[in-house]
């Protein structure tokens, strides 16, 4: 019941927000997201030792159930979602949006979808939530986005929708192979997948993986991503990059690796190579960007590439690293986007060639930028370090014969990451100060939002044990 509440609260609050038709929707959204955070925190405590699950029949004739399950990985991602959404609402509190009731309504619906994806333990339900998370984002971007929003969002939607449909075909195929009453439950799907002969697993692998590859995104399925991030309003960009791309990775860990082991074994080198190409390619592109949003977008592709490479390296420590890094990357990139949007609001541009001198004009903001940037390049004592360390460790211990090569090339990403991130810090925080002196420093709500982010960065950087403990069991299940 607790798990149902986690999904139900944002869902109902979202629907209610639409009907309010007043500025109060903002308050409702904040209240609902804080309540959700409370319940998620409670659920995390409950699920800390043993998974919590909930199941009732839904469409009996199909064998689909409304079953939810919260283990360490799910609760961690729910926690991430539940933290990011209120932070976004708090930092954007003073910003006026057109028709706030629909804006926040869609935000909450999307949150409900995300939480549902992380909790569902039934393939059909999973697919439902997967789409439920997507549709509101489509409307958010197309309605409140930048100048080129309509074609860009449309491309994004069609891309992900094609992926989803292929996944649907894969799910139906697996479900048709099951026997017994609960055809769509995770257990049935897993057994059906494992029982398939290797050649079939190799085909079904792509049917299912393509959806996740587009969502993450890994090279060469990433082309929707920089444009969409650039055109979306920042709160939506945060939802997309901090939470929605995690859906792809989470789905790989839950619905692909355990289900099609032989298919994964066959294709893992291909996927790792694609991911590593993505790391280097995106990092190089990030270096030449002058637009802050595009820079962060490419850096996100690079980080996700590393995670997906580790996901297919079949090493225990790598898996564990992904779980930790999913959380940390979500927090860091949220901080990044918040700063980017503050810069844009104050100085009206995201072009780094025109920026500079934030450290004198807005010293608090500059400090926040530096800390978050350092976390983004995984400096020790920030949360990024432990995750990235484990990822490289995992890649190094991987089962593939080329594991050392993989690791070395992927390691380039770290160096390149430092290049573009530090370059960005230099060009925005320091340097030419002519136009930027007039701006105000952080307002109280922005301060609060960044304080939460930086607090998490530092605490988990120094003491990552809770996060590690929470997800250790899952990693052991995935790679025995």
């Amino acid at each position: 019941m607790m798990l149902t509440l986690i999904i139900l609260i944002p869902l109902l609050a979202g629907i209610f927000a639409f009907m309010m038709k007043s500025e109060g929707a903002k308050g409702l959204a904040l209240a609902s997201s804080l309540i959700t955070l409370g319940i998620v925190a409670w659920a995390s405590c409950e699920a800390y030792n043993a998974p919590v699950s909930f199941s009732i029949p839904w469409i009996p004739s199909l064998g689909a159930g409304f079953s939810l399950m919260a283990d360490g990985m799910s609760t961690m991602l729910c926690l991430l979602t539940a933290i990011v959404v209120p932070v976004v609402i708090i930092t954007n509190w003073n910003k006026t949006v057109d028709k706030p009731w629909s804006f926040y309504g869609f935000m909450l619906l999307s949150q409900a979808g995300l939480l549902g994806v992380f909790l569902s333990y039934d393939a059909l339900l999973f697919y439902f939530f997967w789409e439920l998370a997507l549709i509101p984002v489509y409307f958010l971007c197309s309605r409140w986005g930048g100048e080129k929003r309509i074609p860009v969002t449309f491309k994004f939607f069609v891309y992900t929708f094609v992926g989803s449909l292929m996944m649907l075909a894969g799910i139906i195929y697996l479900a048709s192979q099951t026997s017994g009453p609960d055809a769509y439950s995770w257990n049935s799907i897993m057994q059906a997948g494992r029982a398939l002969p290797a050649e079939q697993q190799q085909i079904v692998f792509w049917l299912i993986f393509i959806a996740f590859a587009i969502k993450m995104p890994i090279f060469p399925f990433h082309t929707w991503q920089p444009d969409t991030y650039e055109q979306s309003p920042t709160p939506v960009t945060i939802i997309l990059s901090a939470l929605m791309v995690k859906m792809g990775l989470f789905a790989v860990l839950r619905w692909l690796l355990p289900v099609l082991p032989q298919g994964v074994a066959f294709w893992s080198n291909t996927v790792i190579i694609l991911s590593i190409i993505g790391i280097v390619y995106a990092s190089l592109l990030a270096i030449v960007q002058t637009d802050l949003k595009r820079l962060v977008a490419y850096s996100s592709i690079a980080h996700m590439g590393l995670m997906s490479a580790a996901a297919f390296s079949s090493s225990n420590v790598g898996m564990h690293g992904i779980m930790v890094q999913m959380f940390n990357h979500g927090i860091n990139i949220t901080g990044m986007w918040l700063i980017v949007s503050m810069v844009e609001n104050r100085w009206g541009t995201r072009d780094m060639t025109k920026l500079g001198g934030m450290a004198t004009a807005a010293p608090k903001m500059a400090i926040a930028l530096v800390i978050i940037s350092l976390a983004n390049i995984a400096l020790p004592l920030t949360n990024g370090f432990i995750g990235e360390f484990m990822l490289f460790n995992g890649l190094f211990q991987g089962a593939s014969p080329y594991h050392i090569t993989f690791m070395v090339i992927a390691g380039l990403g770290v160096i390149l990451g430092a290049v573009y991130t530090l370059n960005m810090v230099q060009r925005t925080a320091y340097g030419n100060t002519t136009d930027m002196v007039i701006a105000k420093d952080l307002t109280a709500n922005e301060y609060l939002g960044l304080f939460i982010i930086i607090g998490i960065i530092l605490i988990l950087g120094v003491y990552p044990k809770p996060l590690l403990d929470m997800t250790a069991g899952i990693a052991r299940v995935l790679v025995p």
Partner: protein
Amino acid sequence: MKAIIAATIFGILMMFASILMKDKKAMANLAIASLLVLFGINIWDLISTPAGSSQAYFNNMLSISYYGQMFNTLMTGCTLLYALLVSKEIQRVGAHVAEYFALIFFILCGVYLLSGYNNLLMLFIGIEIMSIPQYILAGSDKRNLKSSEAALKYFLMGSFSTGILLMGITLLYGATGTFSIAGLAFLQSGTISMMAVAGILFVMMALAFKVSAAPMHMWTPDVYDGAPTPFTAYMATVVKAAAFVAFLHLFTYSFGNVSHTWLLVLSVITALTLFVGNVTAVFQQSVKRMLAYSSIAQAGFMLFAVLASNTMAAQQGMIIYAVAYSVATIGIFAVLMKMKDYTYDGFNGLAQKEPLLAFVATIFILSLAGIPLTGGFMAKYYVVMAAVQTGQLMWLVIFGLLMAAISVYYYFRVIIAMYFKQGNAELSSPVTSGDKFMLILTCLLVILLGIAPQLFLVNI
């Protein structure tokens, strides 16, 4: 059976009403009341038919099963919904309002025959009873050249396909010596004669025409575009669904054993239908014409059920598809009829002017595009699942799903126009609170179908 008699009586009643009554509105109200009664009679029939059984009439030429009765009930429900939503538009088409409704009752009578025929002659009679009123309805806007053109085109092409159907039936009779569905089921793969195969293919072509499957779809865009919009809405939904149920019935119970003779041909027809419908719809500038092509595309998905006719999911999927597609299409046509300009640009900025209209239209479109939480998703889901279960149509499933992705392009253009473009969408008539109530009800029905499809399912 009670429903067939009642539908005929109501049809005749409406014809007399046109002489006795002067007020258009009263005629429409009488028709709606009759439909309500008819719906009640159908439910009565449904309750009195035990699940899994069927009742035979006319020397076993008609045998109404629980499944068929369920279909009849749901289609009558859709007709009722349709009449409630668009009765005002029907009154605007021309002077003979009562006749229009009389024709709709006759169409329903044909629908009932098609869901329960047990003999090829009954199939033929059902199709004719259903088609001839449609030819008249297509041409009911007599002053409009396009409407007359649509009627003539539909009539000529329709009679031609009926001829092919008769030819096929004759060949089957020649090969087997029987008209009965059960008799034809004795066709076996080893011993089937060339004449029987030719008969099967002829019948298939004729039925493909009725459901507007490519390459027999050429009439559809012109007829749907030319016919008065309220009647297009009806042709594209209930009538098409009934033709599909007839198609499915025949190919399940008569030709199921000899599927090797027709499966490949029908798969190609399906692929072609999906391709032509979806790709051509992309290039349309008028929403009405787009919906005509989209109905071809949707027919492609319904053909999945016929292809996988031996599975339970196909039978269930057909009902879900028929209802989900009919409700959403009737809904979107009801919105379309409120618009003055049927092009995409005519929808620009509708969300600012009429938020409710835009919202319900969005739900209907999401359903047609097959997005989860709407009936359209569940419908597509069932038929795709049926096709997967056959084990040999995976290529077609993937092709179909890619085509479904294309469909997002043209469906979402309407959403983009309504919500994200600036403009002054003009309405042809004001939206009354009665309209709003009905639209919201339709919209809730679409969502209910998407969340709890088992409410509409029968086990056969």
